């Protein structure tokens, strides 16, 4: 759907070069290969063009599919937004977080509480912005602690967040609804949208469809912003912090504050993801934000390819669709019991993860990109040899 990843996304491929030359080289080579030569040179313009293209594709996709698929797309969208933020943190800045599910909970509960008011709630865009801001503040606090930690200690600290935050909702059960959570009043579609969809495809543009459009719009906007950020000076600095701490520090980069910034941006994305989750699921309950959510986000970006937004999206698609495919396959083709089929889905997901780690450690996107780079290099070599 979207191809906004940075060429330096595969960690192994870029880490040997100074980040700026890696980016420049990739740009030049992709233009030279002829595949994307029609794209403008300016990063912003190019991303805008891809954004517009993806928006058109998204509308076609949403209008060309059933409502149940629309709902799946909304679910993919909120996982993908959170995974996009996480891939920036882990892939680009080299910090691990096992607590992004908890940050999603912060965004989701903020959204739910702001929608659950007497009278008309604020416009959804404002609510989402507040959710993003609140989560970013939480992310900053966690980030300050996280910037001092490395590897397993950082994983442990963020895991504590994932375990602790659902407990908070029970402790403050009067405001946060306790175990059964807060029912979210999903916003109704405005008239212009209903009429527009009616004109476009003759369908009812309400409920599931409206939510799917919101979710996809949030996905596209957040990926557009993340992609620009990753290709900017900030993204390059993050990569420098990840790859060469000493060199980066010698170049005058304050490691700690850049790490905190990465955590804040990543948390903001998780907050938006939580907000979308709240309106799509129409409920925020602690059962939705168990530590397993944080772990599945991490597996999604690992399977898709660390550091690549497209990889994060791909991983999220697998996260939502694979268990369903596996279950339906078990139910219909192998004629299993429902319980067995559901358990089989976990097994298949686990096997896929193991297989990815063994045969494609750079993830799906990373592996393809490495193969492309290698072929290009080989061709350049032979051309140089021939000329």
């Amino acid at each position: 759907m979207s191809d906004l990843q940075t060429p330096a996304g595969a960690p192994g491929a870029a880490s040997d070069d100074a980040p700026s030359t890696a980016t420049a080289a990739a740009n030049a080579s992709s233009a030279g290969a002829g595949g994307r030569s029609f794209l403008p040179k300016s990063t912003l313009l190019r991303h805008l063009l891809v954004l517009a293209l993806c928006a058109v594709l998204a509308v076609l996709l949403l209008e060309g599919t059933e409502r149940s698929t629309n709902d799946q797309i909304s679910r993919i969208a909120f996982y993908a937004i959170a995974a996009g933020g996480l891939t920036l943190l882990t892939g680009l800045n080299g910090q691990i977080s096992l607590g992004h599910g908890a940050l999603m909970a912060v965004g989701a509960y903020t959204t739910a509480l702001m929608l659950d008011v007497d009278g008309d709630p604020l416009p959804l865009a404002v609510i989402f912005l507040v959710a993003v801001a609140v989560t970013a503040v939480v992310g900053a606090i966690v980030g300050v602690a996280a910037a001092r930690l490395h590897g397993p200690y950082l994983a442990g600290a963020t895991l504590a967040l994932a375990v602790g935050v659902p407990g908070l909702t029970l402790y403050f059960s009067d405001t946060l609804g306790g175990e059964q959570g807060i029912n979210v009043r999903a916003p109704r579609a405005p008239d212009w949208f209903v009429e527009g969809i009616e004109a476009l495809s003759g369908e009812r543009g309400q409920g599931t469809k409206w939510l799917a459009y919101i979710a996809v719009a949030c996905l596209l906007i957040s990926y557009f912003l993340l992609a620009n950020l990753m290709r900017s000076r900030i993204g390059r600095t993050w990569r420098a912090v990840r790859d060469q701490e000493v060199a980066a520090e010698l170049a005058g980069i304050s490691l700690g504050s850049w790490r905190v910034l990465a955590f804040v941006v990543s948390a903001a994305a998780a907050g938006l993801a939580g907000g979308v989750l709240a309106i799509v699921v129409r409920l925020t309950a602690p059962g939705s934000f168990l530590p397993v959510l944080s772990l599945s986000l991490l597996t999604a970006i690992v399977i898709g390819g660390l550091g690549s937004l497209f990889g994060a999206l791909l991983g999220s698609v697998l996260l939502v669709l694979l268990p369903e495919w596996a279950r339906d396959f078990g139910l219909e083709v192998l004629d299993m019991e429902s319980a067995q089929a559901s358990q089989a889905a976990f097994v298949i997901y686990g096997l896929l993860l193991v297989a990815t780690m063994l045969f494609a450690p750079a993830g799906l996107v990373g592996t393809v990109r490495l193969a492309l780079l290698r072929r290009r290099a080989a061709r350049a070599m032979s051309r140089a040899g021939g000329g």
Partner: protein
Amino acid sequence: MTRTSRRLVSVLAAATIATTMAACGGDDDSGGGGGGGGGTAEDNEATDPGMTEDSVLIGAHYPLTGPAAPGYSEIPTGVQAYFDFVNANGGVYDRQIEWRYLDDGYNPTNTGQVVNQLVLEDEVFAMMGGLGTATHNAALDLLNSEGVPDLFVASGSSLWDNPEDNPYTFGWQPDYESEGKIIGQYIAENLPDAKVGLFLQDDDFGEDGERGIRQYIDDQIVAAESYTSGNTDLGAQITALQQAGADFVVGFNTPIYTALSQLTALRLNYQPEWFYSNVGSDPQLVGSLLERFSSGAVTGTSLLEGVYTTDYLPTVDEVDNPWVQLFQRVWDESGQEGELTNFRIYGMSQAYTMVQALQAAGRNPTRDDLVAALEQAGGDFEGPALAPFRYSEDRHAGIGGMGVSRIGADGSAEELTGILITDVGDAEIEEYDGEESTPPESGIPDEEAIG
């Protein structure tokens, strides 16, 4: 859903009911017969999604994997066994009942997803027995805005009895508040000197139960401790109950926490009398959990001997009960793995009520007809439940009563009271004077079609 669209739905519902009732009136002239309505298989028509000429598709969500799966995942196999039994005997109005249930892992996010799939993709005619309070809560809005009958939610929360906001949702088992009242009255009358401690799950299950029980023995309660589902260390709670001097502990908790509270009390050498509400008291499941948690140090149901509980369905140890005999036969015929358990009896009992509702809805019902049939006739359904349902146009609450019993050495239950019926709020508790129902000869209900 806003008020206007809700009103629109009810107007539409009323209109469809009126037209179908007129149609049913015509049907009746052709004579009654199998299943209560007229006509033959040739008269079958497809109506709403999921209702075809020869089949009707019913869906549900259960925790088939994850921590809530032990016990609960047996319920849909019981449902399957009973639907198979009905299908083998011709189905309902010559339609085969198809049963499709999916795993939500007890996670509300997944519940939304699987219910979306069931409703939008598989197009079920109705939902039946969706399990869990928080989980089903996530599906409530979708089912009611889509107009899908959402029958017999497997949770005693009072959320399901709200016909004004959720006209398609019906409860089935007794609500926790009524259960609390019945337990409270029993203690007040029979154990007036007991110092009662409450052990509560930290959600509306515990809250509703506490509200009910405090109506009767507020002055006897010396402590109320709650636990969070998922936290397995109960040391603090059980110690607090012990220090408050409670010699009679009432638990509104799930089976896992029955086992954990027993083991924790054993470790602390705390020996009060225990009363577990129906949800957490299944002796077989708790026995097997105890064995597992204690690594075999505690075996069987020995720790549960003398524990008080409540019943609203016959239990698997009542081998002379005609309902249990019927369900045993159905289970054996279904050829599925495992033994008949109380969870499977629960599933079969729900399936029995479902067949009654489908029969009452007539030969070619729409989704709204099914809801109307339950509202009109559901209060008179007789089945395995010990007390009648409270269904009417204004109420969507399920079984209205239960009896208090005590678990014996072999896990069997000895009844201490008759069936007590009551309701939420100030409703009195009364002894149920209706006759105990027996299953029909064929094992399949025979309800008249409404209209």
